[in-house]
């Protein structure tokens, strides 16, 4: 019998009324690569954070078998406890200190934790001396890094500065960091999201090596093909629940996509939906051959052309990180597009201010940094749009009375809580911060509204309210571009539908009732692949 080294029994995690993880059972065997599939918000990250000790379960138990083969209940109060039990995590966003060398970064992770190191690099005695003396010796750190690097076949230059490394190498350092404290369970959160196809191959070789070394790997991904390539078993989560567990290969990609998305999706009530005919032939937004670079100068949006018209909601579905953010920023003039053009109401506004002044509303993806200013009050945040500001000022002086009235009105209309205009945004819940953004952007009834994940983090009623507002925009003959990772939302609201995958925009209005086909498009298969698989 293969022993399990990690076991979750009936684990539940709630945040307020929201159940993020709903009595999930999960079991990990030594030497296996176990993939976890699920849509955004399915509870994958929460589950991993529970294992890694960042969160504590509301109910249920976690058992772990440690290096000495002791099996016990894990009650991690922080990652420190989990690390001590042999659990390591490589986050999607690397936790490295860019201005230190590889060896120094690895030394830091060892230094934080004095247990477990002994076994990890026992062939090198230098560390003991160093830890005891509390002195940092560069040579020792380099020795340790070299020893680790050699043992696991993860070549990396110990004295290179982390910031000079490629993303693939940085990831390697992250893995070495986990191995330096002898992690026997490695959680990899969307590890391939940042890698190029060539790097992915090399990365899979590393995973197989670690597997051969007896380490268990939890592999979180959206990408079906990779999951099928690398994993031994697959668990699928949907809305916090485990809906499938099986050996890789038991289900086809199409069947897995169905498990991920669920079949109940077609039954979503399309309330409030009136059929609006597009009367005007003039496009509101027109993108021609738009190509946009991402933060690392990679091509994030590749040669995208599309149009939106007044009186329609155009939905763009897709898994996070496929160029949606970059596309929205390029439309808003926040990101430079080296090729192609963005035309709004027949003009080509340059830069965000010009775009805003043409009456474009924007609900950004990241409300914490781009949507609201934490230090500002609700009122001040409601003004955070040049159009609002212009409406409320005369001779550059803010009309206090009008300002207070507008704020009070919006707070009531959009049910922002607490309904106290002076409250700083930082002391509001995420949902209420989002309501500020929605109130600010929708209440102006812009000709074009670019909404990125507008209901992320909202409860059901608040989300419904946002949906009603988006539909009302459409009914007023305005144009709405809805970019969302919530497929239900896009299907419910859109008149026309696109899927964005690896920077490409694929028209998918025809597939709107074929969930499996949509799932395939979202996970990076093209129409042709689908057709092929249907024929075979």
């Amino acid at each position, binding site marked *: 019998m293969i022993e399990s080294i990690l076991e979750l029994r009936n684990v539940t995690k709630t945040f307020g009324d929201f159940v993020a993880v709903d009595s999930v059972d999960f079991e990990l065997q030594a030497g296996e690569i176990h993939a976890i599939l699920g849509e955004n918000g399915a509870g994958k990250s929460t589950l991993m954070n529970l294992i890694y000790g960042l969160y504590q379960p509301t109910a249920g138990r976690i058992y772990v078998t440690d290096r000495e083969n002791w099996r016990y209940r894990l009650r991690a109060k922080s990652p420190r406890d989990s690390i001590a039990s042999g659990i390591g995590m490589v986050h999607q966003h690397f936790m490295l200190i860019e201005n230190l060398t590889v060896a120094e970064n690895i030394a830091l992770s060892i230094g934080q934790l004095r247990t477990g190191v002994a076994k990890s690099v026992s062939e090198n005695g230098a560390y003991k001396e160093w830890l005891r003396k509390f002195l940092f010796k560069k040579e020792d750190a380099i020795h340790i890094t070299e020893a680790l690097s050699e043992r696991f076949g993860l070549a990396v230059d110990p004295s290179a500065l982390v910031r000079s490394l490629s993303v693939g190498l940085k990831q390697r350092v992250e893995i070495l960091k986990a191995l330096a404290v002898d992690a026997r369970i490695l959680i990899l959160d969307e590890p391939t999201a940042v890698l190029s196809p060539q790097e992915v191959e090399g990365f899979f070789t590393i995973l197989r090596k670690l597997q051969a070394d007896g380490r268990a790997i939890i592999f979180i991904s959206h990408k079906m093909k990779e999951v099928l390539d690398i994993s031994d078993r697959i668990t699928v989560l949907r809305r916090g629940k485990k809906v499938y567990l099986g050996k890789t290969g038991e289900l086809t990609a199409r069947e897995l996509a169905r498990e991920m998305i669920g079949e109940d999706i077609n039954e979503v009530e399309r309330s409030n939906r009136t059929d609006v005919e597009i009367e005007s032939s003039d496009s509101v937004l027109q993108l021609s051959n738009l190509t946009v670079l991402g933060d690392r100068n990679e091509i994030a949006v590749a040669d995208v052309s599309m149009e939106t018209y007044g009186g329609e909601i155009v939905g763009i579905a897709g898994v996070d990180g496929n160029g949606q953010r970059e596309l929205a920023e390029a439309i808003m003039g926040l990101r430079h597009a080296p090729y192609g053009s963005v035309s709004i109401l027949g003009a080509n506004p340059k830069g965000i201010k010009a775009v805003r002044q043409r009456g474009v509303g924007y609900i950004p993806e990241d409300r914490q940094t781009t949507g609201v200013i*934490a230090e500002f009050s609700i009122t001040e945040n409601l003004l955070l749009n040049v159009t609002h500001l212009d409406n409320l000022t005369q001779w550059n002086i803010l009309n206090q009375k009008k300002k207070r009235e507008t704020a009070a009105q919006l707070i009531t209309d959009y049910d922002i809580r607490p309904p106290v205009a002076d409250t700083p945004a930082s002391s509001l819940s995420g949902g209420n911060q989002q309501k500020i953004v929605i109130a600010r952007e929708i209440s102006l009834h812009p000709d074009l509204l670019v909404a990125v994940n507008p209901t992320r983090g909202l409860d059901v009623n608040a989300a419904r309210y946002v949906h009603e507002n988006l539909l009302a925009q459409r009914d007023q003959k305005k144009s709405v571009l809805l970019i969302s990772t919530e497929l239900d939302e896009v299907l419910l609201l859109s008149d026309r539908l696109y899927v964005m995958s690896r920077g490409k925009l694929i028209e998918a209005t025809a597939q709107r009732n074929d969930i499996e086909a949509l799932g395939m498009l979202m996970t990076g298969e093209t129409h042709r692949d689908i057709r092929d698989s249907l024929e075979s």
Partner: protein
Amino acid sequence: MKLNVINISDKINIRWLATPVIILASAFVTNAIIMLLCNYNPLEAYQAAVSGAFGNGRKFGETLVKSTPFLITGLSVAMAFRCGIWNIGAEGQFLVGALTATWFGTKLAPIFPQSPWVAVPLCLGFATLAGGIWGLIPAILKVARGVNEVISTIMLNYVALHLVSMMIDGGPLQETAQRGPQSDRIVEWVFLPRILPPHRIHLGIIIAVVFAIILTFVLFRTAFGYQLRAVGEGAAAAEAAGISIVHNTLRVFFISGALAGLGGAIELTALTRRLFLNFSPGYGYTAIAVALLAKLNPLVTVAAALLFGALTTGSYSMQREVGISDKVTLVMQATILLFVIGYSSVQLFRKRASSHS
């Protein structure tokens, strides 16, 4: 009438005031211990300090005079910090303002009509502009090349210091008699008027307080100030709203530099009336403590500056009446600075860190 201008900017209540009170109490207790160690009676000393700073009208007037440079440079720093710009360059901007006023008062004013109504505003105007332009240097470096303003403004302070010594020590602004490293006295019609001669209370005090009020109004009641603060508190969100980060960064630097430059010109035209080496005993640096103690609120800066003015006059009187050596009073002033900067910056950065997580 209630000052409800304060209410719109910061909620000032007992909790808000707790920090400054704790800072000052701990500084005074520490200083009492220092005095005990040096065999002075702290009670006697504090009594002398209070009576020296506030004892009678004349003494209080002198405290006001000493507060003015702290106030105007404090406003410069508070304004910049409030808008997310860590301008440590008030000292240099103060000196450049004084230098410009000297140039105007010694070289240019003689050819102007001999009327203070023309000469004084022109002189202050030139100095303000010069301070603003000096402030734009780090702004352009930051905007164009991403140079951290903390470093560039500190370095420019030294540039300004040496510029002053270059001009008055063998340079074109050295006094005609060429005896020492100082300028000629500025002409009489550039003197900033004193309100109650022969006392030294001058118009600059009123100018500084007016600017504290204007600054509060601009920052908290106008779209212009709103945009400055928005860029400071959350650049990404401000940008997404259509507010230009570049323009507003330049504006903050210019206004902050201009205020400090005005401060230098006021000090020169109202009090010293000539420029010399060590013209500023570090007003621009103490200004950081003043601004932090006032929690970056322009109106509260008035009170904080008054306190620092009182510390200056109070320490003179401790030297005179209790015979405390000037070394000890310097140590005591430094203690207060350390407490203010230490405590306030911890709070400020903790607040920023928590809002960014």
